[in-house]
């Protein structure tokens, strides 16, 4: 299937010489949720802004649903909705008026029924006649999403959609994003919250210092770079790992009170059963055990800081 967004050799340099993007290549698949992760200043927003037409690229090309974003900007932009990071709203306008404006701006004929659906889906229908300035931060964020959806985009960019949003609203938004995906909208989101990407994304891209370090299916990424560990709380502390267990990926922790076994989540045989048998044979008893897994956050930190392996849990 053709990618819905195809980015090739995209670079952005500012007059100061700062390179915000360095020859980025990226294909976004139709209908997926793609999360772009990266620390502050990594180039996430610059990338989005170029695709949406807000920032001029220094080099490279972008196609949205087959349309070049510069030469065929009308067709390309009509497909795209953008929810910006900043809560930039027309403070004195009513919610409904600002949606009507957005829909018209994107070349769509008035459709009150569609706007009502969007407002109801975002729990904004009751607030439709309120001035935006009277709404809470979370509500304003919803208004921005409603504006982006008012013109029925096929591609939706969410730039830090849940920044400064409380936990409940964040969960609501995740649900809304999933529903949008179900309706066929491709979603690209940037986030600081790794749990957000972990929760929602189909694929993850990691960007750092203007370079796309990695693009991977989330589950593959978790399997590839994620590690699982089994921690055994020992009855009697050990001074050292017995030589007969020397070939296993074991470490002593907690002053010899805990034995940590690291295993690969991808392999069919984790080796836990064999380990427990060997411990029994050696007369090493344990009073408790628990397993843990590296989170995407640790994988991300490890990638951004140049490590090749996921950090341990």
């Amino acid at each position, binding site marked *: 299937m053709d990618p819905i967004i195809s980015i090739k050799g995209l670079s952005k340099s500012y007059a100061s010489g700062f390179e915000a993007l360095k020859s980025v290549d990226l294909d976004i698949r139709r209908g997926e949720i793609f999360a772009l992760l990266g620390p502050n200043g990594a180039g996430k927003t610059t990338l989005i802004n170029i695709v*949406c*037409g807000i920032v001029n690229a220094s080099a490279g090309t972008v196609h949205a649903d087959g349309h070049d974003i510069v030469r065929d900007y009308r067709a390309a*932009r009509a497909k795209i909705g953008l929810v910006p990071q900043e809560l930039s709203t027309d403070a004195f306008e009513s919610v409904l008026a600002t949606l009507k*404006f957005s*829909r018209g701006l994107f*070349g769509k004929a008035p459709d009150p029924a569609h706007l009502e659906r969007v407002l109801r889906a975002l729990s904004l229908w009751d607030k439709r006649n309120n001035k935006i300035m009277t709404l809470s931060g979370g509500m304003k964020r919803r208004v921005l999403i409603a504006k982006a959806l008012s013109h029925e985009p096929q591609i939706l960019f969410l730039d830090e959609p849940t920044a400064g949003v409380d936990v409940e609203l964040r969960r609501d938004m995740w649900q809304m994003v999933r529903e949008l995906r179900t309706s066929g909208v491709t979603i690209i989101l940037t986030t600081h919250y790794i749990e957000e990407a972990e929760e929602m994304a189909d694929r993850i891209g990691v960007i750092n210092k203007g370079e796309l370090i990695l693009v991977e299916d989330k589950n593959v990424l978790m399997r590839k770079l994620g590690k699982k560990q089994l921690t055994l709380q020992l009855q009697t502390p050990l001074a050292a790992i017995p030589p007969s267990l020397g070939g296993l990926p074991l470490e002593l922790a907690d002053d010899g009170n805990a034995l940590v076994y690291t295993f690969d989540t991808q392999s069919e045989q984790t080796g836990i059963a064999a380990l427990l048998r060997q411990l029994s044979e050696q007369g090493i008893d344990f009073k408790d055990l628990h397993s843990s897994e590296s989170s995407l956050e640790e994988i991300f930190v490890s990638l951004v800081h140049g490590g090749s392996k996921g950090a341990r849990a």
Partner: protein
Amino acid sequence: MNWHAIRAIYRFEMARTFRTITQSIASPVLSTSLYFVVFGAAIGSRMGAIDGVSYGAFIIPGLIMLSLLNESISNASFGIYMPKWAGTIYELLSAPVSAIEIVFGYVGAAATKSLMLGALILITARLFVPYEVVHPFWMLGFLLLTAVTFSLFGFIIGLWADDWQKLQVIPLMIITPMTFLGGAFYSINMLPPLWQKITLFNPVVYLISGFRWSFYGVADVNIVVSVSAIVGFLLACLFAVWWIFRTGWKLKV
């Protein structure tokens, strides 16, 4: 052509006008009325006629131009500066609209507001001073041309300005003095010979003179020169807007 976008911008701007009607319409009408009361009815009754026109009637075209120029500039500059300041410009830049559609929307709304204002002042003036319009077609043409041209100029100022002070400085520090010195209250024939020549460098002279000609058939400068001057300025503004959107100057990084 994205007609829906033009309509959306136009309606959005007109809604803003009616939301702030006291500031955008009532206030300039009131201040211009005060000029009519003071200079037209009170002082004007003691002044002699100029070019055969009573002083109260003589100043009407100049006063309309004074309001029209200032309001056209401030309406259009505020209209496009506001989204820049509030950050909502992102939507305009990411929308499938061309420069010409954006200009039609914003400048069209600003010019409409100015025309409404011009018409209101004209009607209000009738309450204080009797006047006639010898060339009504040309009078409407001048009103329209001036409203569009100076709304376009205001739009450029709004694009150029990156703070509120810059937004105000050109209307207050340049346009208002040029209008006062451009023959709003006097005929340039009343100036000493040297100043008569110097004042010809003031483009507003041509506007007021042409507009006054459409009322009373008398002008300080040739009507063809007046029309040419304003059309020339219109073309210069169109070129500047075209260049700004082509390069993204002050809009995109």
